[in-house]
């Protein structure tokens, strides 16, 4: 499973990167953290754009770096997407796409045509980069990285330089990449919503170190991590659209542990979706809450209680069937309800976010 093994020690004035990671061979691994956490530096080390004094990097048995060996970036079978598309201004869109494809021995694997089709940039091929919109440029940048036929795709905050509208324009393409490409993707981001939507695996970083790494769901459900996520603390549930109530414009989402109602987004029944439940939207009660405007009420058992970053708040992880959710409640509520490990509770969820 672990196909990329990376160990780096990099010491710059005011910043130290010290990581030892095993990354999976499949799916999207999000390198998540605030700016300055070292996630981009880590990605650049993996790409060979930075050369840390001490490091060992092995990809599928091939040594990219150790104490005596160094494989320069242009010999590593990777694709790299920069935060700004960084297209070559002296080449057309097609020229940009072909630049890497012509120099790569493995270009046949995904191929230029598929990259063009996957990113929907067929109509742009003869244009010059300076005539493209930001979103179009970034799609070309992603296609250019794919056209070399990479065995691993590294993406450095590909959406960060775009406004919300452009982001919404590109996200579906990124989901297609995740679902249709059989190569691992390392995705650097500081945006929890992107991570919740795209990632299968999460590596959380802080001050040059890895503070948590693992599959997305269980890692997000760790109580020591939400502290660092602040308002974005919450879990992501793998689910499926179970039913649609057209009269109320609601969709029922079934997950391992129960069902939730969400606004109907016209996603067909049976489709797999992700449901993001933020800790601040979850409340707990001991008895049946009775009549309430809140539609989503589940039964669960308190599994863990942890501190939050504010001394007046606590984080409570509640097991619901095979899944769990996190609730952010006041410390006083926890005391008044006498919550402890094993306490059965009713879980009320005010809102959920559906992600296809």
């Amino acid at each position, binding site marked *: 499973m672990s196909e990329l093994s990376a160990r780096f020690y990099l010491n710059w004035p005011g910043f130290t990167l010290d990581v030892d990671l095993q990354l999976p061979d499949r799916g999207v691994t999000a390198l998540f953290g605030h700016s300055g956490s070292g996630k981009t530096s880590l990605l650049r080390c993996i790409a060979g754009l930075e050369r840390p004094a001490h490091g060992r990097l092995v990809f599928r048995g091939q040594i990219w770096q150790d104490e005596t060996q160094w494989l320069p*970036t242009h010999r590593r079978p*990777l694709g790299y997407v920069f935060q*700004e598309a960084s297209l070559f*201004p002296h080449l057309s869109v097609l020229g940009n796409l072909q630049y890497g494809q012509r*120099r790569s021995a493995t270009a046949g694997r995904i191929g230029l045509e598929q990259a063009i089709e996957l990113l929907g940039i067929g109509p742009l091929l003869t244009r010059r980069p300076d005539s493209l919109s930001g979103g179009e440029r970034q799609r070309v940048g992603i296609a250019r*990285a794919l056209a070399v036929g990479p065995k691993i795709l590294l993406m450095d905050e590909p959406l960060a330089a775009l406004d919300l509208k452009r982001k919404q324009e590109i996200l579906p393409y990124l989901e297609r990449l995740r679902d249709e490409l059989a190569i691992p993707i390392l995705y650097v981001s500081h945006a929890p919503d992107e991570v919740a939507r795209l990632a299968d695996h999460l590596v959380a970083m802080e001050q040059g170190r890895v503070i948590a790494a693992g599959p997305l769901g269980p890692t997000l459900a760790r109580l020591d991590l939400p502290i660092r996520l602040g308002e974005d603390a919450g879990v992501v549930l793998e689910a499926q659209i179970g039913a649609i109530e057209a009269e109320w414009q609601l969709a029922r989402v079934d997950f391992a542990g129960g069902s939730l109602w969400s606004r109907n987004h016209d996603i067909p029944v049976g489709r797999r979706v992700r449901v993001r439940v933020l800790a601040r939207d979850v409340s707990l009660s001991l008895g049946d809450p009775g009549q309430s405007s809140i539609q989503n009420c589940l039964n669960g058992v308190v599994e863990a209680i942890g501190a939050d970053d504010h001394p007046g708040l606590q984080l409570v992880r509640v097991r619901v069937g095979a899944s769990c959710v996190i609730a952010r409640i006041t410390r006083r509520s926890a005391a008044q309800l006498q919550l402890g490990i094993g306490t059965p509770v009713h879980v009320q969820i005010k809102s959920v976010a559906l992600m296809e």
Partner: protein
Amino acid sequence: MFLTEADLEAIWLTIRLAGLTTLILFVLGPPAAWWLARTRSRWKGPVGAVVALPLVLPPSVLGFYLLLAMGPNGPVGQLTQASGLGMLPFTFWGLVVASVFYSYPFMVQPLQNAFEAIGDRPLEVAATLRASPLDTFFSVVLPLARPGFLSAGILTFAHTVGEFGVVLMIGGNIPGATRVASVQIYDHVEALEYADAHRLAGVMLAFSFIVLLGLYTWNPQRKKVA
């Protein structure tokens, strides 16, 4: 005839000298400019200063040292004699060598600025697209630095045309070999041939103005990496 036979010969010699110097510097300039633009070595300062010396040095000083170096007892002179090339001073090739030194900063500095303006990112992008550093230089750096090459070439050519002090020190005043336009004007004035001096000086003035006009009005919008 507007210009005399000797004037035309001097102009033709000047063009040959400036053209050859520019061609040679198109080969010798880029490596130094690239190194100066990219290096983090502590030698960057000293090397940059040496390259820029001809900008501030009186041409006679530069010419004096070059004359010594190329003379029978100088290191360059010994080398050229030993290799059967003979002596360089008072020959056309001696002027070419001197001009290459004299005009070096006019080639290197615009190129260095153009290379610095490109920045790291296009080079990193090229590396992730499988281009080796040499490949990157030819396929990315050269096209992006084209405006820099153009202005470096024009400046080098024009500056070599305006050379006078170094020519007198190295080349003297041999018709057809070292008597360039600026020296020819000097000769006219010395001989009190003011009308001839006027005509040739007018040609030089017009040439210089046109070159500079072209350089300042043709202002290429330097494209950044999108």
